[in-house]
Every structure is written in C-alpha cells, then in structure tokens.
C-alpha cells in the first residue's frame, strides 16, 4: 500500500496502518490458552499513515477496533452496537447509524458506518462480519462461528464531540488544549 510507513530493515517491517491485525492476535492468544468464543473486545491503538497532514489528516492517530465472535452474530447486532456506542459517546439519543456497502479484505459483508447527527451525515468508520479467512487463519471453524468487527478513528470522534478544529492539536502537547478538558 502506498500510505504505509516502511521501516528501513531487512525484515521489511511496517508501522501498522490499522488496528485490525489485533483481531487475529487476540484470537490466537485465546485459543492457545484453550479459550473458545464468545469473544468481545475493544482495542484502542496508535496507527500510522504516510500522508500529508492538515487540519483533518494526521500521519499518526488513534483507532479503536471492536470484535465480537460467537455462534450467531449478525449485521443487526453490529448496527445496534455501534448505535449504542455513538448515542452514549455523544450523549444524544437522536443519533442514527447508516450502513453503506464497502470492501475490506477481512470482513464480508463489509460496510462503511455513517452517523447521522444534528442533520449531518458523518463518515465514522468501517465494519462488517468477520471474513471466514480470518477464522481459518486462527484455526476456528468458520462454519461454527461468526463475528462482527468495526474500526474507527478516535481522533475524529473526539473532534466532533468537543468541537476541536484541528487533529494536530492532539499531538503537539499544548496545554492550552489539554487543560480545557
């Protein structure tokens, strides 16, 4: 991918571009200990993208990944879960969630998650049902289990929540910003 930061090394390491690899890592760790689903996790983490920075783009920012694996998991539960999160996070029960078709290699079906808030539609993140490939990769029977996963940028959520105009304000350590909260 073009926007990946590569490390100068023989192993061709990268700075992760998204938090989704955690899905596999977590399931591997649990299965090694003999713990089978259900799994429900929330994973915040820093990610890196090699792109020009401006008020709405940073090369380093935070994402949060959610994963739920069980026997009967549905897109409806995914929608219900992200809706609950948005309503709690923004303290607003009038928020609605809209799905749009999308593509991610690790989910099928895949959707973009939009939030409808105060008459505006805002793109918040990506989501979908865990792709059978992901289960196969960790040694879970894809026929037996299903899951949903979502990921979104924490910075953008905070900017919306608190009216912060510039994403770079999160990473310059300026107490004129920090001390307001």
């Amino acid at each position, binding site marked *: 991918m073009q926007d990946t930061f590569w490390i100068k090394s023989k192993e061709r390491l990268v*700075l992760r571009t998204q938090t989704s690899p955690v899905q596999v890592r977590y399931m591997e760790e649990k299965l090694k200990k003999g713990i089978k689903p259900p799994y*429900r996790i929330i994973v915040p983490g820093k990610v890196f993208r090699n792109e*020009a920075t401006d008020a709405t783009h940073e090369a380093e920012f935070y994402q949060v990944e959610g994963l739920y694996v069980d026997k009967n998991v549905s897109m409806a539960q995914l929608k219900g879960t992200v809706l609950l999160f948005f309503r709690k996070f923004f303290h607003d029960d009038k928020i609605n969630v809209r799905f749009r078709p999308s593509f991610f290699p690790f989910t099928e079906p895949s959707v973009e998650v939009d939030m409808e808030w105060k008459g505006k539609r805002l793109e918040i993140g990506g989501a979908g049902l865990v792709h059978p490939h992901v289960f196969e990769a960790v040694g879970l029977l894809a026929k037996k289990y299903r899951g949903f996963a979502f990921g979104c940028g924490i910075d953008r959520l905070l900017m919306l929540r608190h009216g912060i105009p510039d994403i770079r304000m999160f990473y*310059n350590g300026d107490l004129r910003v920090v001390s307001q909260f």
Partner: protein
Amino acid sequence: MLISYKWLQSYFDEKLPVPEALAERLTLGFAEVDGIEQKDGDAILDIKILPDRACYALSHRGVAGEVAALLGLEIKESDTRVPRASRKIRTVSVRVEDSNLCRRHIARVIENVSVGPSSDWLKERLESVGQRSINNIVDATNFVTLDMGQPLHAFDADKVKGKVVVRPGRTGEVLVTLDGKSISIDPSIMVIADEDGPLDIAGIKGGKKAELDQYTKTILLSVANFDPISIRRTSAKIGIKTDASKRFENNLTTERAKDGMDEIIALIVKLCPDAKIGKEIDIYPKKQKKRRIAVPIKFVQGALGMNISEKEMRSALSRLALTAKKRGTALMVAPPPERLDIVRPEDIVEEIGRIVGLERIPETMLPPISALPTVNKRLNLENKIRDMLVSDGFSEVMTSSFASSGYIAIEKPLASDKAYCRKDLWTNFHPVLLKNYSNAPLLGSKEIKQFEIGKVFTVKGEHTALIIGLMPVKKSVSEVVQKIEKMLGMPLCGKFCGGNNMYECNLDVVMKIHPLESPSFIKEGAGGGFIKTFKPFSSYPFIVRDVALFVPEKMDAERVQKIIEGETRGKDVVSIRLFDSFEKKLTDGSQKTSLAFRLVFQSMKKTLTDAEANAAMEAVYRVLRSRRCEIR
C-alpha cells in the same frame, strides 16, 4: 471510474432519476459517488468502484447492471448485430506460449477499413469521460472497453510480420509505446510479438511499430484475457497504468472476451460499412468453470439479523442476474461469469443485504454476558499511574512518535524531523514542556506539570515509557516518582533527564515484575452527560502586567477582581488572577491588606503593543484609585 449519465441512460428505456438522486441510490447500495460534474448537458459521475467489484463493474454496462438491480429497472435488449465473416480474408497465425498467463486470445483480421476522424457521437461519448479522440478505429476499441469492460487492441496488420505469438519478453528487446516511451523488455514482461519482436506489452500498452495511421487498410484485432497478478506486477515494474491494465489486474472473466470481439466488429462495420471481417481465431484452452454456491436461507437471515423471506432473497438475486434455485433449505446460486467476486455464501449475504437495503437491517442489542468485562492489565497499570499523576495536578500530553534521530529509520519519511521512530519520550516531550512553560501565564499557573505515556523504539525493540516533567527547572519530580513507586510497591528504575525536573522510565520493566491485576469493572463515562466544547485561543503573543494595591477596609479580593474585570472588559485581557495577598500591620496598630493581581493581555486578531497594555493598565489604576485603593 467516470460514468456518463447520458451513456448510462442509453441502457434504459425508462427515464433514470436525476443524477443527484441516482448518485445517492448508488452510494447507498453499490459504491460511493465521489462527485458529479455537469458537462455539456451531461452529468459525469465519479464512482469509486470497490476493489472486489472491479472485476465486473469498471464499465458503463457494469454500472448499468447495478442501476437496474437497485432501481428494479430492465436493461434494454442489445441491438448489436454481429456481422458475418466474409470469405477470402487474410488469416494470421496466433500462438499462445503460456495459457496460465494469457488465458484466452481471440484474433480477427478486418480488411478494407478506412482510418479517419470519429463520428460526433463517438467523440462525444469518449470526451464526456475525459478521453481524447484519436481516430475512428482506436476510438471504437476505447469505446467498447469503457462500455462493456473488455480491453482490446487494434494493430495495423500490414505492419505485423509473420506469425503472432503471445510470449514472455526476451532480455535486450525494447518496445516503443504508442506515446513514445522506450521500455526495456525482460522475461517477466509478457508481450505480443511478431517475427521481428514485441508489438505490444500484453494487457497494458500498445507499441508504435504496428500503430494505425491514415494509410491503414487492414487491421488485426486482439481481444485477450491475462493473469491479473502478472499484469499488476508488470504494470508496477514499468510504471504504466492504463485503462486496460486496471481492468485486467482486477481479474476479468475469460468468458466476456468473445462479447468484446462481437461488440468491436459490429461497431467497426457501423463506422466503416465497407469493412470485411475475417475468421475468428479463438485460443481458449481452459474454460472458466461454472460456479454454484449453496446458501442456506437461515444463514442469510442469521447473518443479516433480519427476517427476510425466501421470496425477497430470490427477487434481490434475480435483479442482480444471479440465478437461484431452491434445494432443500438452501438456495443454489449461479453467478454470471463476470461475477468472479462471488465465491462463498457470505458474498451472497452481502448482495442480498445491499439490494433489499442496508437501511432495513434492524438495530439489535447483544445478548447479556454472565461475567463482567476485564480491563487489559497493562492499560490498567498505566491508568493507575495516570490517575495518580492527574490528581497531583499533572496534565497528560501526547507528542509525535517520530523524531529527527533515533535507531529505527523510516524509509520514506514525511519530513527530515520525522525520519526516525522516537528512541525516548524526552526528545519530543522536552520542547513541549518549555513551550508550555512560556505559556504559563496564559494557563494561570506559575509552574507546568505534565507527563506522557507512550511507545518508544530502541535497538532492543519497542517498549512503553513514562516521562514526568516539571517547570521551572529548579523543581524536582522525585517526590511524585516516589509516590508512584510506593503505589506500585517497586522501583521505577528510570533516570532523571538533565536536571531533577524530568524523569523517564521504562514501564515494560515494571509490567514484567509487577503483579498485574485485570480488574472487572465498568467505568461510567467521565463528564456525566456534559460535553465540554473546545474554546479557541489566540496564536499571537501575550503581555503580562501586575498590579499590587492596598485595599480600603471591607473591600475583599473578589470585589477588586470584579472592578478590574469591569474596567478591562473588551480590552483583550485573557486572564486576571490574584497571585499574592498579605496583611501589613501599621505602627498605629491597624492593619492594611495588600493584594497583587496578574493581568494577561492577548488579542485574537493581532500582536498587542506595550503601549496598548500600558494604557489599559493606566485605566485600571485610575478606577482603583477612584475606589480608594492605594496602588503600590
């Protein structure tokens, strides 16, 4: 991909919704429409075709199929009449060396063409989506590609010498592309060649050697299908991306190559009525297999979480031209050949979901859990440290993970001061501490207390570090460090950086030894329903002025503060803070109270001058004197 609304309309008898409404429908059910451009009475939709759908949707016909499915419209029957082959037309010999890389090749010679300018309708179509008109034959091939998705190429048959072969290139061969670039060929690059050498970089770009010109009378049409991975690698290697390569690298079906040939000869005969079509030479050793996917009806309902009937499912599938037959409790779905994106039941779930409408998916809550969730042990430890520091008046900052020096270098950094992963927190934390200290008056504070927790990258690998800093420099953080050590019951083993006012340590060391807990609890969100809104601040310099005064009896600091506030309202004062007060005993036994206030001046619009601050202070003195205060 750019899609012309007029072109799209040509697929339907019924009038399409207005471009904006159509775009909205496509965005919600197919792919995001990034923009609509009004252009010469047409509307051009920029559709971000998703990578998995690029195998069938990078064309007007592909998008028309989606429009038909989403709106429940019928696509017009094609009026293409495939012309018959004439007798006694020249033949060419074609050979494919590796049928894994060139999965199908159809060739046809057409005699008696006349190359010239295109008809207006053809020019208009191409120009609407940003393509330049070249000549009638080349335009026809480009039109067919944009119309139905199959790339194709026309050679001047008189410039092709001997037998044609699709083969790996040979080291030392050079191909000059149609736009005049010399490409060094090697065995990893597949070419279409004649006896003399390469004519074309297969699936990517045509060569100059057999280019059509105004004297061309006979053409050789090549309609092929190539291995997507090979095309992608070659395209990246030679740095050429074309309409053809973009389509091939997304895995086109071999089945539609024949349709491509039928479309192009029909169009050429329409443009050059005297053209004579030769025999079709179709090399297609491995036919694409027919696929059928069994999808249990319950599986679709379960995955969508929606009560959707079998009838609705079948109707959604048939709108997408996916035939479904019932077998037991499942549907056997047969996708058309170009739908190579559909391979497993989950793909069918997606198709049904988006056609019935993702907005119809209800919002369902998860089943309750028996045990409380646990908090990640490391995060819990970090949070304990955070809570302690914050309760001690420290603010948490985050600085960049990049630095101008370090052990781990970035291949293509954004800037030279971001060329490495930071080796410690101090590098970026220290300047931020100094900057915040310079802003201390604005923050209404004499000192700055801050900390950061973050990953750092050393030769040994990455670890989580903690840094605590205090300003002014003479201050020491050792007390708070000891407090943390006491809380954890173990030493932090870090080091002071420079003076005693900064201390950095490796938290991974702590985490390795510390008996980490993973508590179960649900913390209610902080703020209790109230969301603080960011207040903008000025980026101009500020000016500090102090005023000290003796107050008359019965006047307290609050009253003085009010008086100063009243006087300075609207005069760019951002902070008024009492910073000193004491009682003075006079010789006569009475007492006097002295108060000292610090005023910070700063404008949102400009740099204030000393004169402006002084003038404002004079006014403050005046009003205080008038209230019987004694300015010291």
